[in-house]
C-alpha cells in the first residue's frame, strides 16, 4: 500500500495491446502493437463524480479495467484508496465494483434476487445484512416487484438497473461506471443518471468514475471530466475550468450547404475565428448535403463576418446559433476530434 490522499490516482498509466495474426493459416505471424493508454495521469477526490470522455477506442474501458484489477498496465501505476491495483489487487476488489453498459454480467436463468444473493456471497457481505441490502437496492432501482422473476424475462432497462444493484451489493467505496446507459432509451437513461447523481454520489458519498461518449451525460453529471483521445489524456478539469482555457467563451454552430474544402480552410483564417471544426451531421436541405460547423469565435459579434464570408463563397447557411461552449465543443477544441 502506498500513501495517497486521493480515492483514485493514476500515474503514467499505459497499456499496450499486442495482437498477433497470420497472413494465412500457416503463414508468417504478424504482430501489431496498439497503444490503448499512453502515460495517463489523473486523480479523483473522495466523493467526486469524475467523467472520462472520449470516442470509441479512446482508452476509457481500458482505464476502468485496470482500475478494477481486470487488466494489468504495461507501465505506470494506479492506486485505489492507496492500494496498488496490481500488487494489492485483493484489497482493491473488496472496495470497488464496476457496472458496464451493454454487457451481461448477470445470470439470466436466475431471478434478480438470486443474482444479487450470489454476488453478495462472493463479496462476503455480512450474512445478517444480505437480505436487507438486497431489498433496499431493489427498492432503490424500482425492481422490488419483479425481484423474483428470472432475469431473462427482464427488459434491457431492468437488466441495467439490476446491474447497478450488483455494482452496489458490496457497498463499494469506489464505483466504476463504464458507459452505464449505453443503448438504453432516453427515459431509462435519465432515471439511471439521476439515481447515480442523487443516491450514489450525493446521498451515499461514494466516489464514482464514469466513462461515456455522451457529452450531455457527462455535462449533466460530472464534477470534473478528463478528455481521452487515442490513449492520451489531453485535458482534465471541471467544465468551468476547461471553458476558461478556451481562447474565447463563444461557440457558433452553423449548418451550411455547398461548403468546399477550400472555403473551410479560408474560413479558419478569418480574424474573428479562433478554431473551426466540421462535425458529423446527417441531414439535407433542399436536396443538398448539410455540414455542421462548430466555430470558436472571439465574441458574439462575429456572426456578420462569418455570414458575409459564407455569402461570398456561395455557401448557403441553413441555421446559425451562437452560444457558450458545451462540453462537446470543449472536447473538440482540446482533442481536435470531430
Amino acid at each position, binding site marked *: 500500500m502506498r500513501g495517497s490522499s486521493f480515492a483514485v490516482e493514476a500515474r503514467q498509466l499505459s497499456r499496450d*495491446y499486442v495482437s498477433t495474426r497470420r497472413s494465412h493459416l500457416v503463414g508468417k505471424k504478424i504482430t501489431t502493437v496498439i497503444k490503448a493508454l499512453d502515460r495517463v495521469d489523473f486523480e479523483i477526490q473522495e466523493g467526486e463524480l469524475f467523467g472520462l470522455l472520449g470516442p470509441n477506442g479512446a482508452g476509457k474501458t481500458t482505464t476502468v479495467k485496470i482500475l478494477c484489477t*481486470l487488466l*494489468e498496465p504495461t507501465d505506470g501505476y494506479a492506486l485505489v484508496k492507496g492500494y496498488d491495483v496490481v500488487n494489492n489487487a485483493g484489497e482493491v*476488489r473488496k472496495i470497488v465494483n*464496476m457496472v458496464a453498459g451493454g*454487457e451481461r*454480467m448477470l*445470470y439470466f*436463468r436466475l431471478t434478480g434476487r438470486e443474482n444479487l444473493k450470489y454476488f453478495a456471497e462472493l*463479496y462476503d457481505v455480512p450474512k445478517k445484512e444480505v437480505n436487507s441490502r438486497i431489498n433496499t437496492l431493489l427498492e432503490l432501482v424500482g425492481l422490488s416487484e419483479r425481484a423474483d422473476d428470472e432475469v431473462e424475462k427482464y427488459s434491457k432497462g431492468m437488466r441495467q438497473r439490476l446491474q447497478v444493484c450488483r455494482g452496489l451489493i458490496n457497498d463499494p467505496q469506489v464505483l466504476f461506471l463504464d458507459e452505464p446507459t449505453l443503448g438504453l432509451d432516453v427515459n431509462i437513461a435519465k432515471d439511471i443518471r439521476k439515481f447515480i447523481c442523487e443516491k450514489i454520489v450525493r446521498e451515499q458519498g461514494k466516489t464514482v468514475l464514469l466513462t461515456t461518449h455522451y457529452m450531455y451525460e457527462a455535462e449533466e453529471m460530472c464534477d470534473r471530466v478528463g478528455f481521452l483521445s487515442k490513449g492520451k489524456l489531453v485535458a482534465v478539469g471541471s467544465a468551468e475550468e476547461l471553458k476558461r482555457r478556451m481562447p474565447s467563451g463563444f461557440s457558433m454552430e452553423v449548418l451550411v450547404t455547398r461548403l468546399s474544402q477550400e472555403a473551410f480552410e479560408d474560413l479558419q483564417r478569418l480574424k474573428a475565428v479562433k478554431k473551426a471544426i466540421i462535425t458529423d451531421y446527417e441531414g439535407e436541405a433542399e436536396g443538398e448535403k448539410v455540414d455542421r460547423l462548430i466555430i470558436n469565435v472571439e465574441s458574439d459579434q462575429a456572426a456578420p463576418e462569418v455570414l458575409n464570408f459564407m455569402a461570398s463563397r456561395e455557401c448557403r447557411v441553413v441555421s446559425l446559433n451562437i452560444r457558450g461552449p458545451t462540453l462537446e465543443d470543449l472536447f473538440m477544441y482540446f482533442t481536435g476530434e470531430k
Partner: protein
Amino acid sequence: MFLRAVLAEVEKEVKIFFFSARTLFWTLTLPLGNGLYLYFFYLPFAARSVNLEFNSATFSLDLVGFTLIGQLLYSFFTMMLLAGNTFVREREEGNLEAVLLTPANRMAVLLGGALAGAFNYVWLLLGVAISWVVFLNAGIIVADPLALVLSIVLSYLSLVALGMCFEAFFFHSRRGIMYATALQEPIMFLSGLIFPLQSMPSALLPLSYLLPLTFGLISVRLTMLGGASMWDVAVPLSVLAAMVVVFSALATWLIGYAEKSAKRKATLTQF
C-alpha cells in the same frame, strides 16, 4: 469466506441446471433408460470373469462389473473435465469479469462448480448403478464397506482436483473443449478402463500411474467386486490421497498464474 463462496457457486449452478421442471424430470428419468440399454448390452457377457493382478495377488472379478465400474468412473472423469470448464463457460456467457471482480477465492468458485457438476449428474450415475444391481446382479462382493466408500470418495476428490488443474489450463485458452476431447481417448486407454492394466505394454505403465483414474479403478473394482480389504488397497488409496493434495496445490498455483497471465496479455474476455 471460502466455504461461503463454494456453497454460493454450488447453489447457483444447481439452480441454473434445474431451471425448469422439465429439466428435472428428464435428468431423473433418462439414466434409467441408460441403465436398461447397458443391461441388454452386457447381458451376453454375464457370468464371465476377468483376472486383475495387483500387489502380487490375482483377483477374479465379474466381467460386467469390471466394465461397468470402468464406465461409471469414466463418466465421472468426463464430467470433471466438463466441470473444468467453469470459467470458460462464464466467459462465453459474459459473466467472467463479474466473478473475477469479486474478492472470492478462485479455487472456491472452481470447487463449487465441480461439486455442482457432481450433484447435477449424480442421478445419472445412481440410475446406472441401480439398474446394474437390479437387472444384472453383477457379482458384487464387498468385504470392507469402509474401504469401498473411501475408494469412491478419494477417486472422486482426486478427479475433482485434476479437473481443477485442467480448469486452470483451459482458463485462457480458446480450445478448452477441444483439449478435453483430445484427452479422453488416451486417458481411457491408459487408465485400464476397459482392460486390466497387466495387458498394457510395460513402456506405457508409467503414464498410467500418473492418472488418478487408474488408482480409482483399481481400488473401487477390488473393494466392490473382489472383496478386498482396506489393507489390500492401502497403496492405491494412499496414492489417491496424495494426488488430491498435489493436484489441489497445483491447481491453486496454476489458476493464480493463469489469471495473472490473462490480465497481462488482455485475454480475459477473448475466446
